[in-house]
């Protein structure tokens, strides 16, 4: 370093972790949420671009998707925010026991969502190779399914980690907090997709 140092401030008393926008983890998660959100927005733009060429949507003779599985999926997704919020609050309150107790619920809900998602793929009434309408519907659903999968793996690994001595570390509670934030992104991004897959093709017939 050029010149001799002049010691101005001692930072050793600063904390070694912080929640929300004070931590690097939060910025990393936000960065990837913006990237994935951009991909969703662009896929939705492609959806409307293809739709703008059609007189009817879903284009006849294809029937719009059957909304039962998707609606059930949406309901479970919305309800999952209850344990998710509880985990987030427990993490911010350094309540490790509550986090350890609640994380398996999120993992179990993930399994249930996978099962429902399987039924969703089966109720689209169109295959991805039938036409561009089918392709974009499948693309939206598949893109969202990758988010369910990544967050499920993330939550399962976190659950296992929190049961080790590392779970007592405040930084792991920051990880838990940010995992809950990411789950909010996953279900919030689902709502417009649900509308586009199941209801727009009914509204424009």
């Amino acid at each position, binding site marked *: *370093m050029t010149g001799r140092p002049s010691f101005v401030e*001692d*930072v050793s008393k600063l904390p070694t972790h912080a929640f929300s926008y004070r931590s690097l983890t939060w910025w*990393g998660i936000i960065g990837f949420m913006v990237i994935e959100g951009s991909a969703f927005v662009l896929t939705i733009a492609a959806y409307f*671009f293809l739709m703008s060429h059609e007189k009817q949507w879903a284009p006849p003779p294809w029937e719009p998707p059957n909304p039962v599985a998707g609606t059930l999926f949406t309901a479970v997704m919305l309800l999952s925010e209850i344990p998710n919020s509880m985990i987030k609050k427990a993490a911010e309150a*350094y309540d490790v026991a509550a986090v350890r107790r609640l994380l398996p619920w999120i993992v179990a809900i993930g399994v249930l969502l996978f099962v429902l998602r399987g039924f969703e793929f089966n109720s689209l009434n169109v295959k991805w190779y039938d036409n561009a309408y089918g392709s974009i519907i499948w693309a939206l659903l598949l893109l969202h399914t990758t988010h369910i999968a990544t967050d499920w793996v993330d939550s399962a690994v976190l659950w296992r980690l929190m049961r080790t001595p*590392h779970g007592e*570390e405040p930084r792991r509670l920051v990880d838990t907090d940010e995992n809950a934030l990411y789950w909010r992104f996953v279900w919030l991004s689902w709502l417009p997709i649900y509308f586009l897959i199941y209801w727009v093709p009914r509204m424009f017939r």
Partner: protein
Amino acid sequence: MTAAEKAKAPPIDVPRDGPELTGAELQRRLARTWDSPPGLIGWLSSVDHKDVGRRYIVTALLFLALAGALAIVMRLQLARPGNDMVGAARYNEIFTMHGTTMMFLFAVPVMQGMQIYLTPLMVGTRSTAFPRLNAFSYWTYLAGGCLLWVAFILNIGPDVGWFAYPPLSGPQYGIGKRADIWAQMVTFTEIAALAAAVSLVATILKQRAPGMTLARMPLFVWATLVTSLMVIFSMPSVALASGMLLSDRLVGTQFYNPVERGDALLWQHLFWFFGHPEVYIIFLPATGFISEIVATFARRSVVHYPIVVLSLVATGILAFGLWVHHMFATGLPRVGYSFYTAASIAVSVPTGLQIFCWIATLWEGRPRLEVPLLYVIGFIFTFVIGGLTGVMIAAVPLDLQLHDTYFIVAHFHYVLIGGAVFPLLGAITYWFPKLTGRMMSEGLGKVGFWMIFLGFQLAFFPMHIAGLNGMPRRVYTYPAGMGLELPNMLSSIGSLVVALAVLLFVVNMVKSVLVGKKADPNPWNAPTLEWATACPPPRYNFAHIPMIDSRTPLWDQGKRMPVVHGLRVEDRELLLTSVLAAEPDVREPSAEPSLWPFIATLAVTVMFVCSIFSPWAVLFGAVPVTIALIAWFWPKSPVPDPEPTIS
């Protein structure tokens, strides 16, 4: 101790930098803490941003050489009418490889390499926010580049142009795996660029030295921030587009097939929504180089700093509203023509403002005409010509005449070489001592500059004429008697001069690394923080984290550098500061070296390459990728350390 008690516990008693631990002893201990392991495994495990940045730059320059060699082949082929040195099909491959390599494997990566190397040094921190993600970014980029070039060597390289329009690249016409390789190379490089961008944004917003408010950030760091945000918003578009193209080709989706309700123009929208911002992703870092070089060599700070910053931000925003000007010839509603013409002309305003600010800085300062500043002057001259032809072709009637002619080829080479490569060569000369510890030869540098500057004008100016005379781009030959012989011959001679000049630049680099003059920490008397540490910097960058109170700290600091102290010495630790005011906020650990980013890249590579042949590869390939990522993040010690570490 419970987590709540740990959260409130006072700092433990471990060695920390400060008045009691400073000088040589501190440097010895920090060097041990921040060093990479020895040997090949250590080399593959390095997460040092300087290693990653250097690797990015060297690899990108190798790809520049390869793509440049292809350019020479094209110019030799086009030197005479009716030439048969290269056949039509091979020529298609060559121009595709040239454009693809230059855009995806040279221009964006070399800028990100410079950003990865310089940003932590310029903001006064010891590492990037996500060092392992950074390392992963480099390996993924390298894998994508190797995929493309191995395919080319095996004679299955892409031949559909660097923007791979369907239906030419679609399943009906793009037979074989050539287009798939192109599309999957895009996936590799976009993941790499996005990973680097996220790391850079977090580094800039959270790791600036105390006192470095947003209004005191070096202009290069501002350019890096804007560019990285542009990467984050634009690159998903091409990743999505190429994913759709791959699925059209592999599993029979119909996104781009008009017969089954798809639309080939969807590709053009998605591609250019990325492709136009990409031009600015390449150009804005170059403006950052120029701002730093101009300030140092004019010996005063850049005039009207707020205008330069606002111009960067405005360019970043406007860049997303221009993509349709690449599609004027596809037919658009009249209001579309008007809007995108206006937007395309408007984007020249902030760039013009920046150029006036640099000229004013040189006017107000006491300029030293050394090699980096010569490249800036070469930039201003060349880029203004490219910018003006850009304004010309923003007008629809002219664009419809000149679309897909050599006029366009001339325009974008003026913009990209004049606007990005000239500043890059100046920047390499300027920061060479920081990268290597030695100065580049001034004499060879000046000869090289004049050769490349004049050779460039000779190579590319006649292309305007060839285009106006009606020569379409991407043709492997042309007939005699259409007024194309002279401009093409001049272009070919010019390209050879440019090639010689680049070779001279490389000779200068190699000679300087071996026997160049050793550099002091601040050989140019520059004002920014990267010059406050040794050339090349030690692994830990700064022994103490500097504290600043101006935009030009090294010019204003006096004899003693104000610093903060109290970071751990035996573990890797960073100081996080608040986003706007850069006040000290948190101490966070920084990742130790790890082989897992490299292993994760291998797993990703297997998945991506196999998915060219079977969609099931995505499903089965995801398993090793997931395992590698979990191992990457999983703590390596069974019990946590007293204060957090990332092992």
